């Protein structure tokens, strides 16, 4: 983990995205890798999905170009996202080897309604979803939360803090986003590795809780 990004000055996204010259040898799976699991990082355009993936991934985030149906070719809402000039349907992903046999993949996925088919394919088999929210544009996340809930995937919500973000009390955020009382809601700085890891941990610990509760329920009945 020698090349941890500094928390304050992330490299511009442009230079961190894998260049097309990436070689197979740099990507081959560790021979010991036995279980490959994934978490979907989902949120509207510009919310910081790739930034979060980049801050924890051991490889530079890669991307695949995904084909969408015609219904998806409408213009994306870029309100309040000043630095984002283009949108693509590229799906970014990163990889983290966790100990010997377990490899975690993070897939950044737009969660808007029109990505439904793509979302279903990417979310298939995922442990859960980390929903990334920009508190300056909460309404942009409603679609996303709807899609995630409908898919039945367990999720946690992380509010990515931007320099000009309002700080809302947790109660207010929960109410605005209509979150269940036990859904984890954390603040995170997607540029910061520890902060991003904590957000992922909030999800995984929630999964462990639910799992334990399900097991306890089975025992009781």
């Amino acid at each position, binding site marked *: 983990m020698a090349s941890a990004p500094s928390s304050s000055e992330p490299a511009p996204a442009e230079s961190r995205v894998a260049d097309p010259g990436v070689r197979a040898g740099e990507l081959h799976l560790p021979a010991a890798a036995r279980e490959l699991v994934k978490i979907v990082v989902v949120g509207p355009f510009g919310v910081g999905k790739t930034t979060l993936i980049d801050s924890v991934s051991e490889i530079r985030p890669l991307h695949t170009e995904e084909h969408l149906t015609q219904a998806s070719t409408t213009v994306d809402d870029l309100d309040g996202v000043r630095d984002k000039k283009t949108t693509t349907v590229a799906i970014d992903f990163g990889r983290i080897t966790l100990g010997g046999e377990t490899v975690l993949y993070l897939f950044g996925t737009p969660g808007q309604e029109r990505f439904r088919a793509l979302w279903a394919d990417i979310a298939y088999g995922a442990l859960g979803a980390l929903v990334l929210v920009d508190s300056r544009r909460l309404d942009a996340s409603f679609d996303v939360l709807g899609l995630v809930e409908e898919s039945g995937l367990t999720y946690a919500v992380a509010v990515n803090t931007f320099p000009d973000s309002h700080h809302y009390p947790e109660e207010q955020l929960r109410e605005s986003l209509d979150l269940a009382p036990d859904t984890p809601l954390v603040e995170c700085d997607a540029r910061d590795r520890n902060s991003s890891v904590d957000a992922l941990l909030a999800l*995984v610990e929630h999964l462990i809780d639910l799992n334990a509760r399900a097991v306890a329920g089975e025992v009781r009945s």
Partner: protein
Amino acid sequence: MRSHRSGRPLVPAYLSTSGVARPSRNSLERLSVLTSTAGPVFGDLPAAQHALLQSLEGGSLTVVEAAALLRLPVSAVRVLAAALIDQGLVTARPPVPPAAQPDHDLLKRVADGLRALKL
């Protein structure tokens, strides 16, 4: 966020599979692990199949990694990989062994692994 610096791929995705739109098998997930069997290649492989086979020299890749590497859509790599599997040149295994579906132990390993990442 990302530019198409080197332009569009020389070969469009639909040609990479010779026009085949659906894989010959349905079991390939994004994280299915592709491994070359290093078996003998009889005759000439289509260029895109050959490129995929080459990317597996010296190690395994997931479907999605191969797609990123070859700059092809995941759907196209599914078709190519299925063709190579049919020819016995590549094997695929599911991301998680069927016996170890997301259970408590797996989740614990993920949580512990994540904690260990913190600086």
